[in-house]
């Protein structure tokens, strides 16, 4: 048999976005090629052109309904950078609260709804069972704790952003609506319960990681570069410099957003509508980097809050720094969830968060070129707009979180596939009993 075997997985499920996998196996199950085929694109870069630039933060969130808040904020920051506008401090606190609330709910949904079914029912259970609906049926306590975390995050987003999905309140120069003291108090009252659910989540995550330590340390261990925002070495998702770490763990770049074109390379593959972003000085494919939870934890020395920092240390004790373990992304997600929770508490307790001084009234549009970078749950997100002297958008370049990861996903899938097909590694792997047997 010399014919190659092609395995096509369509669609890729339980993953946000539209894609398929194409795996090509040669004789002796040799994995020849893996493609992650992102199968659609909608041309936001084009149709943002010609719009008054302040409308971009109301349009761009539709790039992703799972992480519309990072888009809203990266977009408004890009406009402000182009027009030389600095919003009042209270507005920035509100935006930070908004993005942390999103981080919390997004990580919760990802951990519980997308990843949990595998370890609850075991990765080989029937698809009719291996899903979040079944988690709800068999482990209602876990499900309720997950839902409450998501609810906390999403509803807090709604209070600040007017809508939790596709928020509308951030505007060049600040926020259109302050947070009322009444609303702030309502959220403060819910903090203790939220914290309790966070602690339970950490316990669950630790158990899962320890149960699956064989999988974490043996499957899809893929050295790459990493990219993430950093606030002087502490993990920050709203602002900072962009750090790049090489596969050996050395920080090779630490730059300000406007300098991104020196460091970001964009490769246009023939098999995906989503492009591959990489570390430009190293070239493609050598410079393939990954973003997202683990990347942020890798590039930063520490977390910005105490409990999260403890959790990070514990994680590093297991997987080291840098960690190239693809499955450690789930662990890092929980570490970040802790930071989001602590940040939310800190911001809610800060009196400035309810200041009504949240918007400038004298913003002037002008010709400019602005870059806005924030961390979306799935990685570093960049919006770059150019405006004319009326403040109309003439050119946009968008580098969304996912594109930082696609080449890395292919790389780690390749490692996983070799393990499965070439080394028949699944046989050797020690898997725990599923939490629930079906």
């Amino acid at each position: 048999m010399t014919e190659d075997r092609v395995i096509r997985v369509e669609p890729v499920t339980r993953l946000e976005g539209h894609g398929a996998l194409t795996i090509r196996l040669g004789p002796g199950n040799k994995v020849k090629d893996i493609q992650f085929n992102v199968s659609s694109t909608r041309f936001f870069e084009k149709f943002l052109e010609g719009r008054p630039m302040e409308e971009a933060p109301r349009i761009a969130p539709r790039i992703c309904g799972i992480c519309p808040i990072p888009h809203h904020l990266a977009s408004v920051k890009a406009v402000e950078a182009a027009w030389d506008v600095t919003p009042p401090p209270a507005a920035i606190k509100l935006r930070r609260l908004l993005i942390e609330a999103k981080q919390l709910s997004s990580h919760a949904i990802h951990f519980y709804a997308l990843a949990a079914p595998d370890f609850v029912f075991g990765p080989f259970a029937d698809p009719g069972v291996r899903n979040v609906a079944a988690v709800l049926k068999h482990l209602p306590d876990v499900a309720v704790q997950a839902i409450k975390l998501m609810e906390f995050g999403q509803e807090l987003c709604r209070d600040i952003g007017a809508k939790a999905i596709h928020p509308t309140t951030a505007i060049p120069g600040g926020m259109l609506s302050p947070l009322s003291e009444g609303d702030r108090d309502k959220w403060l009252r819910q903090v203790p319960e939220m914290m309790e659910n966070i602690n339970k989540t950490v316990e669950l995550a630790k158990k899962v990681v320890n149960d699956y330590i064989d999988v974490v340390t043996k499957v899809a261990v893929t050295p790459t570069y990493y990219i993430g925002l950093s606030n002087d070495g502490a993990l920050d998702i709203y602002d900072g410099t962009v750090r790049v770490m090489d596969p050996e763990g050395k920080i090779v770049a630490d730059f300000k957003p406007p300098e991104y074109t020196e460091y970001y390379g964009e490769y246009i593959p023939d098999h995906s509508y989503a492009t591959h972003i990489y570390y430009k000085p190293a070239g493609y494919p050598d410079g393939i980097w990954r973003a997202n939870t683990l990347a942020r934890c890798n590039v930063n020395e520490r977390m910005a809050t105490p409990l999260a920092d403890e959790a990070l240390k514990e994680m590093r004790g297991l997987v080291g720094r840098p960690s190239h373990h693809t499955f450690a992304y789930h662990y890092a997600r929980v570490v970040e969830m802790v930071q989001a929770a602590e940040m939310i508490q800190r911001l809610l307790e800060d009196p400035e968060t309810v200041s009504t001084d949240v918007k400038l009234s004298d913003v002037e549009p002008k010709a400019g070129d602005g870059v806005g970078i924030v961390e979306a749950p799935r990685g570093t997100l960049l919006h770059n707009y150019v405006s004319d002297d009326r403040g109309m958008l003439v050119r946009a370049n968008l580098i969304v979180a996912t594109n930082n990861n696609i080449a890395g996903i292919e790389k780690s899938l390749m490692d996983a596939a070799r393990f499965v097909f070439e080394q028949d590694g699944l046989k050797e792997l020690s898997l725990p009993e599923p939490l629930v047997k079906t």
Partner: protein
Amino acid sequence: MMAEPIPVAMGQGSSCWGCFQSLVDMHLRLADVLPLLDIKYWQAVVDYKLEDLENYPDKSIVVGLYEGMARTEEDVHLLKLMRQKCKVLVAFGTCSCYGGIPGLANAWDIEECYDVKFRENKTFSGGKVPTENLPPIEPVVHPNSDYVDFDIYLPGCPPTSDLIVKAITALLEGKELELPTYTVCHYCPREKKETPIPEILRPFRGNADPDRCLLEQGYICLGSATWGLCEGQCVSKGVTCRGCFGPPPPITQDQGAAAMSMLGTYAPLEPEKLKEQVPDPLGCFYRFTYPSSRLGRMRIRREELKEASEE
């Protein structure tokens, strides 16, 4: 006694997944709704593949939701497949009902879109349009209703979780879905005095009076041209409405035309001034409905004729 779960499916075309997220945002009510469902296809939630959906008997799924617009041939296929397999098919969200924000791409040729996406931008140059193992891109976005008939339109970008719960509950019970037909203004707490507008302001200008109608203060607000199923989420937080729920019933109305007529009535300014102060009517009044609007239809026809003449 619990009734048998009802077979349902969700198809996701080219979309942002926001409609899906809004469904998840029903939070604890999920615990009531999920057990009623026998999910037959839903890429975000269960591992069934396209092949599984293709193999189900026709009309074997009781309720199907279709999120997103049809940007690729694969989207069109999935949309038609959903129609074939589902008894009741819901156009789920504004993209599915009217083409939505991504439908704005229709204002350009597809080649112009490819240029900034794949050929030349700040981080790359000289790229080619990807083709390997990918579904071809449709040259123009048709409204989904050009491909299939829907039984129900549930607009919103995204539809609110409350609206989704209401719709799903009615559908599962086999009842008629009755929705109020008011516009956003109906739910807006701001005072309206019917005063004409002396000047149109961009939304970052000044500081708006929190109690007065935003439109009357000069900020373009599409509340009166928009179906109020959101109950005025933005306007009650100081933000103008951009019309994300599309026109009120009958939803075949042209929301953009209605909004322009409304603004002309409120702001009878000198034409030159108005053109200067409203620099982007298409992106403002047709943001969510361009493909299904009259202007959008003219554009689609032009693309079709172009294709026909190339063949």
